[in-house]
């Protein structure tokens, strides 16, 4: 018997009225892995995240953590079990200071770590490089800063699985490289397994151990970055047909 994966979905679906936003998707995440999720706009990536994180309930199928079913549990309980997500549009609590924002996250991870919420928040802010800005309001941060804040708030919970929804998008290329490095450090130094949605190809391709591709709610491909980039289905649905016909493989 192999050990069950850290996190898995089994034929999970979500329908909005007639729309199958997520359609029978199977996904597995191993301990210490970085899994990239890509796909066209509206493919159902964010919805899939919401299903896993318990923000919304699946229409059918299940979400498993270490082989135990966790679907149907409210979001806050999944968080306490170690499954933590960030949002595509950063959502800091605007009236709380940076430190307070992170402290809110730190409150509910306490059982796995002895440090007080505030001490842990301080440590995490140091890690993401926001210690200097601790007493400012999130509104004063740059977008990249707020993305770091979002990461810090999630890390303060001491997650087992971190689900990142387009954290790199929208920041300038220099910041994007720094954020990518930070994400790698989160996995390497903190042992957190990561699922990330990203449209920024260089980042996904270089960070991910594996990539899953969604289109119209279905998983159409999965595998190593290079394999996925060469997959004609992926090229057609996402990377672009014009590219495929010219017959080259991505770097």
């Amino acid at each position: 018997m192999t050990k069950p994966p850290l996190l898995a979905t089994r034929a999970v679906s979500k329908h909005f009225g007639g729309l199958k936003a997520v359609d029978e998707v199977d996904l597995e995440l191993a301990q210490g892995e970085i899994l990239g999720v890509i796909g066209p706009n509206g493919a159902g990536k964010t919805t899939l995240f919401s299903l896993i994180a318990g923000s919304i309930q699946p229409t059918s199928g299940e979400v498993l953590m270490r082989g135990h079913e966790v679907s149907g549990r409210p979001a806050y309980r999944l968080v306490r079990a170690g499954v933590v997500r960030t949002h595509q549009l950063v959502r800091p609590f605007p009236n709380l200071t940076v430190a307070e924002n992170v402290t809110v996250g730190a409150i509910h991870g306490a059982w796995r770590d002895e440090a007080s919420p505030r001490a842990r928040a301080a440590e995490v802010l140091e890690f993401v490089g926001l210690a200097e800005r601790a007493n400012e309001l999130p509104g004063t941060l740059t977008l990249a800063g707020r993305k770091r804040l979002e990461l810090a708030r999630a890390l303060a919970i001491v997650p087992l699985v971190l689900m990142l929804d387009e954290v790199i998008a929208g920041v300038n290329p220099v910041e994007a490289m720094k954020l990518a490095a930070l994400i790698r450090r989160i996995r390497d130094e903190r042992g957190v397994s990561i699922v990330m949605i990203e449209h920024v190809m260089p980042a996904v391709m270089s960070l991910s151990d594996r990539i899953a591709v969604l289109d119209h709610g279905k998983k159409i491909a999965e595998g190593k970055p290079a394999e996925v980039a060469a997959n004609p289905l992926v090229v057609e649905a996402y990377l672009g047909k014009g590219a495929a016909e010219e017959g080259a493989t991505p770097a």
Partner: protein
Amino acid sequence: MRRWAADVPFWSAVPFVIVVAALAALPLSLRISPYERNLVTVAFLMISGALAWNWMGGYLGQVSFGHAAMFGLGGFVAARLMLHENPAPAPIAWLLGGIAAGVFSLGAHPMLRLRGPYFSIATIGVGEASRLLFTYWEEFTGGASGVSLPIDIGMKARLYWWALGLAALVVTASFVIRRSTLGLQLLAIKADVDAAADVGVNATFYQDLVMVLSGAVVGITGGLWASFFSFIEPADMFGFDRSIGFVLMSVIGGVGTVLGPVLGAVVFVLLRQFLLASYPQLYLGLYGILLILIILFEPLGLTGLGLRLARAVRRRRRAPGVVAAP
């Protein structure tokens, strides 16, 4: 190394304790007439009510237009207990009134998934329905003619300290809630329920908790109110104007702050008394204008105005032309 805004050293309570002690000694001085003392008592009660409303409206961001239901319920339960053939001692009656109001507010649990104006409109409905139902329930509220409590000559004097005690307690609770991790979570829920859940906050539970606490405190305030006025009737206790009063006090003072509702309540009681004596025809409109100006220009109310002034003064001090300190 870092100064957390949240870490309040315990000595910061010293000025507060001094203020409370001074207020407690106030009626002992001969300078204050019973009239002034009573006015201050009412202000204490309003402070408690406004702060408790603010836990919902300010910390959680659920603007209730129906808190009169809890105020009235607390008042009438307390009154009934004191009028019983084996009358309960007043403090017990107040407490039980508060508990009843707290339990009652739990009934609003299903409404908590409404947010913004929907929640507010629903509370208007609950408030008005409560008023009508309780007015109809004669055995409990005495119907439209209300109930009178026996006159207790020393009661008003004693109520000053009880009301002060309650207000001090509620101010302390407001600080503690605001500064504790509970307060952080409430503010997080207010800012974004979903995002709060995504960092592990059990929004449902905390909303219920705050609603019950808020309802209970407002209920206790209602009980003290009943004792203070000796006569209460449902039209007044459950009235829409009373609910609006809680909203006005908090908004004028500064929603979501601790100082705000306190200031708001004091202004509400004192300004009202002053205006009533001098310009009784204008006070409604003045509140309206105040409300409009605050919403348009200073969401933090008087507190925000104060902060702005303080900042301006500080800037002035630092302005060039003033000789800098060595």
